[in-house]
């Protein structure tokens, strides 16, 4: 187990900064002192102007996985995987990719009685440890991950590592809570990605008639006479909630992705990677 180090390390992941990597990013006007090896002569031939090719700086990637293990993530229905299972699968897949590249992964997990603890992994040899650690995660942790994430953003050593934080949660809390979290992440220049997990019945509840709803976290009952009007109101409220979170995330430059548990996990991960919503 390693603590996240404070020194910047080279890696295989392209960063936002321009550097000596292999991935072409853009052209810029040549200025005196630039290396002539990076002058794009074909452009000079067409335009008669010297342009220098810029490449993304290849830097060491550090993935911070924050998995919401509250009780709401463990609700399972109709044989579909729970949101926590999907979050763990996605976290394992992303962690495997990062570790396979030799980069580091930090898992932010909490115990039932203790504050969140950061567990770091680096290198391919630690892949099985990461998977074993993820297998041990169970639902019922409450909001401790969110508290740990706030503390994580405030830590100075994490600012220097510029980690990529991935939050996997159902986000069933008031948008104001996440707005403050996103603001904190933006203030500390932490690249954050939010994978919003939702069950299909949360997006479009198939309920009808006299229903007693029981909160999975608090056990609170709520008796409702669910009809089309109620369902329509719920859908509108869910969409409003989703728009609020998405708007707060985009406002702070945070990527937000909605995934439903009835979608295949492989396709979901590949979709995240393919369209660059998660990693560039």
């Amino acid at each position: 187990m390693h603590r996240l180090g404070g020194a910047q390390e080279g890696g295989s992941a392209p960063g936002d900064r321009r550097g000596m990597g292999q991935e072409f990013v853009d052209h810029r006007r040549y200025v005196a002192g630039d290396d002539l090896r990076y002058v794009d002569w074909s452009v000079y031939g067409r335009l008669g102007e010297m342009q220098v090719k810029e490449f993304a700086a290849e830097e060491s990637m550090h993935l911070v996985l924050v998995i919401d293990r509250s009780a709401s993530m463990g609700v399972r229905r109709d044989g579909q995987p729970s949101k926590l299972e999907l979050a763990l699968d996605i976290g394992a897949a992303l962690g495997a990719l990062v570790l396979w590249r030799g980069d580091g992964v930090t898992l932010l997990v909490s115990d039932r009685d203790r504050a969140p603890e950061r567990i770091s992994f680096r290198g391919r040899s630690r892949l099985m440890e990461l998977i074993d650690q993820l297998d041990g995660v169970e639902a019922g942790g409450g909001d401790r991950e969110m508290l740990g994430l706030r503390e994580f953003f405030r830590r100075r050593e994490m600012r220097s590592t510029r980690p990529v934080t991935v939050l996997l949660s159902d986000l069933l809390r008031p948008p104001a809570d996440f707005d403050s979290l996103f603001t904190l992440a933006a203030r500390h220049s932490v690249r954050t990605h939010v994978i919003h997990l939702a069950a299909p019945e949360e997006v479009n509840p198939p309920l009808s008639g006299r229903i007693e709803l029981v909160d999975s976290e608090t056990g609170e009952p709520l008796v409702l006479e669910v009809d089309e009007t109620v369902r329509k109101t719920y859908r509108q409220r869910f969409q409003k909630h989703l728009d609020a979170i998405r708007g707060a995330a985009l406002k702070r430059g945070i990527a937000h992705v909605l995934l439903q548990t009835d979608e295949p996990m492989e396709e979901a991960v590949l979709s995240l990677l393919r369209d660059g919503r998660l990693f560039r």
Partner: protein
Amino acid sequence: MFCTVTFEQPGAWIWIVLVLPLFVFALYRRKTLRVQVSSLFLWKEESHSRRIRLGSRLSGWLSLLLQILVVVCFLAAWSGPRWGGAEKSGEQTPSRLVLVIDNSPSMGAREDPSGSRRLDRALKRARDWARWAREGRTVTVVTTSPEMRVRFREGETAREVRSGLMDITVSGLPGEDPLDVARWVQKMAGRTPTRVVVLSDRVASPNPAGSGLEWVEWEQLGQPVPNDGILTVRSVRNIRGPGGVLVLDLVCDGGRAREKTIVVREGRKIHYQETLNLVPGSEVIRHRVKMDDLGEGALEIVLDPEDALSADNRFQVKIPAPLPIPVVVVGGPQGKASALDAALFALGDRVDRKESVRLESDSPPSLSRQKRCLVVVQEGGTLGVREKGVTLCLDPDLLCQRLGVEKELVTSPRRSVRVQQEPLWSGWANLHDLIVRQHVNLTSWPGMNPIVSTQGGHPLVLAEKGPESLRVYLAFSLSQSNLAALAAFPLLLEGLLEQVATMNPDRAVQARSPEEIRLDPGGEVTTGLPVESPSHIGVDFEFDLRPLCIALAVFFLIAEWGLDLVRRGRRGKP
């Protein structure tokens, strides 16, 4: 519809058909599916979650309570609950007391050695009852005088009641039957707890169960008048034609001395009223009544209307003045048209032909028509009419024997005539058991010999000499508009028989009436058995609570639905 459930009324179990679907509906309607959701965050307003939670729980319990009440009320309605009843009547505290004071002429009789009249005793009792008027209870005084039909006074204090009693005097007319007034009071009182006290000198009628008079207290003032000293009219003459002087020959026969009241009236207009202190005897008392404005209408001479001879105390005689009666019909066997016509002709000039009963030959009249007719032809038994509580009986055998004729006048058109065996006469017939066989118009009665005629010379008893025997027909008049004249029928019969006896002094003629009087073998006429006044006076109100239970059940059902609608409306904005 709201009958009590008994084994004799299995139809009342139909209520269970209403309860069972409701019960099943209540069971299956409220089935709630329990679903675990990730969070109730999006299902309710966070700011109102606590209030909604509390309201939801309370409304749930309230809904359950209302449903239970609905079922309980329907079950209670099905069981047919009742409140009150005879056993609780004594515990009721009626808020109204109605004193029915009989101020008919008989109440002016002085039987008390002190000289006080019966009405004075009744008023004294009424003043005692007036003390009952206190603490919000009212006392109403109702009299039976015919001038006002009933006199109604109501006071909330004893002084007001006593002051109202001072105006009550003895009426000159028979008035309403206190029993009828009591029934009227009962009807007007409705469900208001009312105590009725009747102050009268009449014998209280038996109160059979279900008659509605069990709650009437009857205070009898004075002893029942024995059936002696019967005042009868021997003859009535109008010596000056219409208007002038009526000469009444009266006979007070047998019994004890007592006061007799004579009232001559035309409709409700009283021409003459006099109270005579007669001494029983067989001598004829000639009484002259001066009539100043005697018109063309029917005059009635009311003789002592309180005489116990009449069951309803309306003892009156209609003199053969111009009669607006509708019809006079004499029944008899078919083929006796001449005799019937003769009888009809007896009063033909006084009969309104337009109101006569038109009957085809051999066609029995309707019941209503029968009431308009009087038929006194019957086979082998007593001739009689029974109507309005009065039964007239005449022994044809005895009559024929006295008249020296053969008994051929009695012919029953129907075999269903009810004959009741009595010690002296063979029976009596009900008017409704007799039918009219024929009605024809005739201007003369050839071959008929009038035996008894009215004052105007019209025959009432006709004799027809047949090939082998002598047949006798009786013709009587009855007014459809005044059925009370039926009460005069026995007196008329008696007068007729008196005429016959006068014509045949060596033969006795006898008649008896009415039904309330039993004729013992010894010939002594007594009144019926004394009737005990109800010892337990209270208000016998019994309410059927089934409509109330049903109303409550419907109310709770509507309330529960309303509550459900409110909850639905709240859930429309989760």
